[in-house]
């Protein structure tokens, strides 16, 4: 489990993280979202032990991460901009990882390398960006980490490659229960893989929930009401819009409760449609003029 408590970090007077707290449960796939400059990468660099906090704590399984190789040997990190030693090839990097990460699994590495079809003797700097990312995933997963930290992991990858990378990641989670922290400014990407989501804005954690909590609590209804009838007052409508006679309403509450309330006014037609994660966020935070909307949409 990753625990961040009251983390503060400033750069030349600019407060990048402001008393931030978050919890990533063991075995969770946690999506950290926020606009550019929200502080996602800064949080991740604290969790991977790169940055020293100004104040606050960052622990993994109760142990501080900073300057703690024992804990860090169980964390694999894939930055948004992957670094390899200049002129190194995949074999060189694998040797380095094998010497650095005590749990590095050479057999798994070979299997993955073959499945990704990456040339082990070509210089990594000659690989395309996508192939470099694949190599990073390969090395990270072969390191058998307990915690996998990914910063914008599929940014710049084509859809096929994204699918392949996510598949590899989820397979590892399913097999070994790896805790995954993944940052993105694209909620659509995270919706399919995350079970926990935290939204970050201007160095603060705005909201931190499980995906189920979020999606179960807000419902999108498409309704055609009879003449002279209105939506029940008991419903907490977050947003409504009308196209022709069809009214679309975003309503807070469980599917069962909303359905029962709508049925009570005997509409001509009504249907409850599942919300996408980004719609949930937009309407949950609808009253707040956050740039979050831009992030999500």
């Amino acid at each position: 489990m990753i625990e961040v408590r009251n983390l503060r970090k400033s750069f030349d007077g600019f407060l990048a993280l402001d008393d931030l707290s978050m919890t990533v449960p063991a075995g969770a796939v946690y999506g950290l979202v926020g606009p550019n400059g929200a502080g996602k990468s800064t949080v991740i660099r604290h969790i991977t032990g790169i940055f020293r906090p100004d104040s606050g704590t960052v622990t993994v399984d109760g142990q501080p991460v900073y300057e703690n190789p024992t804990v860090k040997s169980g964390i694999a990190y894939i930055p948004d901009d992957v670094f390899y030693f200049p002129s190194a090839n995949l074999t060189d990097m694998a040797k380095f990882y094998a010497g650095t990460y005590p749990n590095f699994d050479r057999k798994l590495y070979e299997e993955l390398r073959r499945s990704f079809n990456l040339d082990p003797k070509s210089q990594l700097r000659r690989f395309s960006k996508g192939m470099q990312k694949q190599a990073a995933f390969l090395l990270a997963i072969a390191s058998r980490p307990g915690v996998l930290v990914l910063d914008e992991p599929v940014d710049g990858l084509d859809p096929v490659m994204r699918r392949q990378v996510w598949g590899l990641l989820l397979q590892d989670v399913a097999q070994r229960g790896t805790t995954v922290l993944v940052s993105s400014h694209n909620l659509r990407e995270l919706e399919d893989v995350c079970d926990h989501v935290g939204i970050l804005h201007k160095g603060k954690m705005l909201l931190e929930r499980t995906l189920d909590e979020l999606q179960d609590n807000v419902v999108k209804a498409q309704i055609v009401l009879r003449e002279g009838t209105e939506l029940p007052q008991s419903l907490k409508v977050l947003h409504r819009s009308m196209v022709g006679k069809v009214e679309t309403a975003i309503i807070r509450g469980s599917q069962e409760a909303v359905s029962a309330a709508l049925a009570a006014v005997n509409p001509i037609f009504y249907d409850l449609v599942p919300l996408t994660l980004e719609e949930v966020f937009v309407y949950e935070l609808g009253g707040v003029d956050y740039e979050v909307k831009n992030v999500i949409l």
Partner: protein
Amino acid sequence: MKSKMSFFDPTLLKKNISRFAPAWALFGLLLFLTGPLPLLRRLTGSFGGTLLAEAKDIWETLSFVYIWYAFFAAALFAVLVFKYLYKTRSAYMLHAFPMTRSCLFVTNAVSGLLFFLVPMLVNGLLLLGVLRLLQVSGQALAVWSLMGASLLVYLCFYGVAVFAMVLAGNGAVGILSYFALNILPLALPVLLLLPVRFYLYGVDLNLPDWMLLLAPIVGLHERLIEGGGLWVLLGIYAAVGLALLGLAWYHNRVRQVERAGDAMAYPWARVAFRLIFTLCCALGLGWILAALFGALNDKTVAYLPYALLGCFLGWFGSTMMLERSVKVFKNKKIWLGFAVFAGVLILGTMALRYDALGIRRRVPETAQVASVEIWTREDRDWEGPSDRITLTDPGDIDLIRQVHSSALESYSPNDSLGDLFGTAYGVHIRYHLEGGGTLTRVYRIHNYEDSQPLARLYSRPEICVAYYQEALPQSFRWASLEGVTEYELTEDGQMVGYSESSGEIRDPQALREAVLADAAAGRLPIYNRLTAYGDASWMEGGRVDTLNIYFNLSPELGMDLRIFTTATETIALFRK
């Protein structure tokens, strides 16, 4: 599982060795090309002399060459192993690996040491191999001494280089800082003395010789040429290098990796960088500009605008480097900082120019002076010991004060720059004050008449006796006198003959008695720069004033003493 306290990572070391193999292999090749190969060629070729002499000649050359190798290799290897700090991508990745900062630092630092040490060790073995091949014996110690000395020199430069690389946030500033750290301990006092010496006429502020040692590259050459105490100096330099490595390690522990790419990685280093850079520009660049535009031809404050221009360029140039932006002119705080710096520069310059503290004008009262030393020349190999004499008589002290006052009265702010540094014909005065302090001045005596009261002191018997008692060596292997005492000239100045004086004696006591007898009788003044004698006079009358006695003190140590041809008893002793 890795230990949390692990200070070394063999995997990273192996990676460094393989990654940077081209660099250290090329360095090894360079060592081979300038060590074993020329040795082999010279020892097997026909260069004349013995093999041993050839080998010794090569050691001497290599001792200089290896200093420069160490100097540049230190910068190169330190940049290579610490360059990951200069890009966020590499810095973040390396710091994300499961190793402590100390482990990263120590492993990288050891890598850089090995890049020098291993090729140098192989080089030493090859040198020994060549010597053995050619059956030159007794040189193993010399080879290992050379290798050991090179390693100590490298430790010094490498410590400086690693410290510079850790302080800096990018490679260019790292290398600039390396050169600056090597030379600034000497260059900064020189720069600070420029305006002081320029404005404070007479204030004797020559840097002491030991300050050369503050810049290792200068100090090592100086000591190799002068000889003596080299190993002690090497030990001190190596200790300084190790201390700097320690400081670099300490700083690296708290380094903000997000500073990658910045000019300087630490707040204090940013302040120091800006101040030192500006100071160097204000004084150094300002001085050069003032010289180029002819503003150093007078001692008015005409120099000041150039210093301010240098200050402006230095302050805003350094700020641009630190901020990584040229858009620094809109920041009021930066202008305020510049204003403060420029204000201090103006105040300091004006204070010096108008002698606000009365330093230039100060002449101590006779009652305040316990004794006074004067000298017109320093120790020189070809002239003998300095003509420094000490005066305690109040009348003599008063005479010196008068000369001092007269020099100040004749001072003109428009004296040429040459007056400041041209101390060859000047007289040094050092007052030893009753309170225990000293006051040292140097003045150029502008006309011959003014110099004569001082020159006469150098002929006074009791002063001469005291001087020669000190100046004569207590013992020597032999002393020789050789030279022309008088030329025979025709009326039109053609030389038709000359008389020589020569001889050699081995009795220090006899020589001492003869010299002191001549001095007591007023026949042997002290050789100085104020008395009229020398080449010009013999051309007129065929007379030669001075001769040299050479003292052989040991097989490798000699000393000259210049005497006058009026010292008849001394010359007669040699002629016997």
